[in-house]
């Protein structure tokens, strides 16, 4: 599976995010690199939820982080609403980040423990508004220079320095405090906190440790929504939660998606959860894309042997794929030195000689929205 290729990319006009040939590599030492993500391509249409699944180490979290450019991908393009994020400089990227937000797995660790919940939620607004204070810093710098110069010259220079300092400080402060001074932002924060099912009055007083894991995850969601993002990348958002709370959060995400018209990229190792939330599913293995397409088609009839293995291993009491194939007992190969050809071949029950020589290209299965990178796909019933 280790497939590459872009046959599955769509041409539709409502494509919000299009990732092409994305490669993320991390140097280990002078000679070797970790091939975390090796040329994957996918697209997400507006209002859609793309589920991204795979074992730990398959590069799904790296993919998510590379989309928001932390760190920037080694190569490839991340096209968001017609802009290639890789080409933006830091300031442009910061401005763009309010459009692409992220929710992390550990709800408590990802919130600042020393701030009140309300402050955490409004922080995004503060940050996204402070970029205007650049001239402020410039004036402050000028003030320092003039003040130093004043030591050698006249009183007039000293006065000019003071003036520049005051002006700079004012611009910075205005930038910092604008969101909480402006009444509309306050309302916005309250509205979002209420929308995710929390009490805004309580939120102004309490800190994350006073909230349960489920509530903290609601705070994380509120923090992203307050910026009115186009797309939210959720990295294992419910994996640390109990089932009863997990259902609350999943339902809440669905509500928020409808209410605020957001698009989701939902990363999870839990195929039952992904089944529930996603419109399309992408299966990754060792930095490559195995299978992508409509989740109904893939769950009904997985075409990639790896997808089948994943589905068969699912401990769901209602799993129709249970026992279809044996569990894998071999180890995940090293991403420093991945297998040639198809990366799954070393563990694949269907591997042949060609799998070691040629990397399979992504091709359509049947006529529907199902695409697989495999020399011997399963869909023909064999």
């Amino acid at each position, binding site marked *: 599976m280790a497939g590459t290729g872009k046959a599955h990319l769509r041409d539709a006009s409502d494509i919000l995010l299009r990732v092409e040939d994305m490669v993320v590599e991390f140097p280990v030492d002078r000679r070797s690199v970790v091939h975390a993500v090796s040329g994957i391509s996918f697209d997400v249409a507006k209002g859609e939820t793309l589920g991204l699944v795979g074992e730990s180490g398959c590069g799904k979290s790296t993919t998510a982080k590379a989309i928001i450019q932390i760190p920037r991908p080694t190569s490839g393009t991340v096209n968001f609403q017609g802009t290639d994020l890789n080409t933006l400089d830091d300031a442009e990227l910061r401005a763009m980040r309010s459009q692409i937000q992220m929710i992390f797995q550990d709800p408590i660790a990802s919130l600042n423990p020393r701030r009140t919940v309300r402050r955490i939620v409004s922080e995004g607004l503060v940050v996204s508004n402070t970029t205007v204070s650049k001239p402020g810093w410039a004036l402050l710098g000028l003030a320092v220079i003039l003040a130093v110069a004043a030591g050698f010259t006249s009183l007039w220079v000293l006065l000019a320095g003071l003036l520049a300092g005051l002006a700079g400080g004012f611009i910075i402060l205005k930038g910092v405090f604008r969101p909480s001074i402006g009444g509309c932002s306050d309302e916005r924060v309250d509205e979002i906190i209420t929308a995710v099912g929390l009490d805004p009055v309580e939120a102004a007083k309490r800190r994350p440790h006073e909230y349960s894991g*489920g509530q903290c995850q609601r705070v994380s969601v509120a923090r992203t929504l307050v910026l009115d993002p186009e797309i939210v990348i959720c990295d294992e958002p419910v994996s640390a939660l109990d*089932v009863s709370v997990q259902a609350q959060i999943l339902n809440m995400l669905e509500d928020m998606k409808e209410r605020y018209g957001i698009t989701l990229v939902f990363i999870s190792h*839990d195929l039952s959860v992904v*089944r529930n939330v996603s419109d399309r599913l992408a299966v990754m293995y060792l930095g490559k894309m195995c299978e992508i397409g409509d989740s109904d088609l893939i769950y009904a009839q997985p075409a990639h042997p790896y997808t089948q293995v994943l589905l068969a291993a699912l*401990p769901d*009491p209602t799993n129709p794929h249970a026992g279809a194939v044996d569990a894998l007992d071999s*180890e995940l190969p090293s991403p420093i030195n991945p297998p040639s050809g198809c990366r799954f071949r070393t563990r694949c029950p269907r591997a042949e000689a060609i799998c070691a020589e040629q990397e399979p290209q992504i091709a359509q299965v049947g006529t529907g929205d199902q695409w697989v990178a495999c020399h011997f796909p399963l869909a023909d019933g064999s």
Partner: protein
Amino acid sequence: MNSPKTTGVLLDVNEYSVGFRTERGLAQVVDKVSFQLERGSTLGIVGESGSGKSVLNRSLMGLISSNRQVEEGSALFDGEELVGRDRQNFWGNRIGMIFQDPMTSLNPVMRIGRQLFEPLRQHLAMNKEQATERAVELLTQVGIPEPKRRLRQYPHELSGGMRQRVMIAIALAGEPELLIADEPTTALDVTVQKYILDLLGELQTDIGMAIILITHDLGVARGRTDDIMEMYGGRVMELSPSEELFSDMSHPYTQALFSAIPRVDQPKHTRLTPISGAPPDPIEPPSGCRFSPRCVYAQDDCTTTLPELRGSDEHQFACFYPVGTDASMQARSTNTTRGHTATGLKIQTAGTS
């Protein structure tokens, strides 16, 4: 090797409670739990975080060394009382235990070999050659390739699944009669999880030990256990033969838990039915049934009287209005009519939930 007995009750727990003295008062984490475990059988203990499932087992094993702990009731292991005595001589050779995170349970600066030799030499008094031979045998048994080389490796050189296999090998080294597996696969990928669970099943058949499998995942417990005990707020909610729990669930909590889980056989975007509210506070638990504040069937007596386990010997449940009975339907319709339960939980009418 200790006893050739293969049938009979191995562990008989009776009204066993564990509490912790805190500044706010006594936190009753395990509240009068009773169950019996037959030799060679598997009991699944299922519950959410804070249900007391882990504390129950750690405390039974004598692994909690806090002087704030208050332990009451009785637990007979093969006829010997565990409560109120030092249980160290049961560790390893009679009761083995594996934990959720194999990296923190293994000693990171000790080679796998030495960690495996420890129980072999201590409990079975083997010499070095015998221990090496047995260690290789054990690693082979748990499906670790190149066992000889592994003995010389450190835990960090192994993957998560491999480490958990090493943990199982260490737990099996003392040939215990009971293996307590506390969330053994929660930190692992689904593919590895299946392998480890299958392995535990095979080993149990070969060795004939009893297993207590603690998990938060009903799916993991199903099909791999003889009985399932479901805990909530430190109390047993339902105790039943595994399949019966799914086909004929009696406790509203079981029902609520089951409908909160996303299922692969449902279409996408199926609305889940979450359990509203939060788990109970162990220091000030709700009066009456612990689940009553979150239960859609709750009536007045649920808030005043603590339901005891009832039903048949095989299938017990702690509820006045078990699912599927006339009483529960009556309770449900009463609550629907008045729009809320006896505890004030709002009932959403169908379609708006």
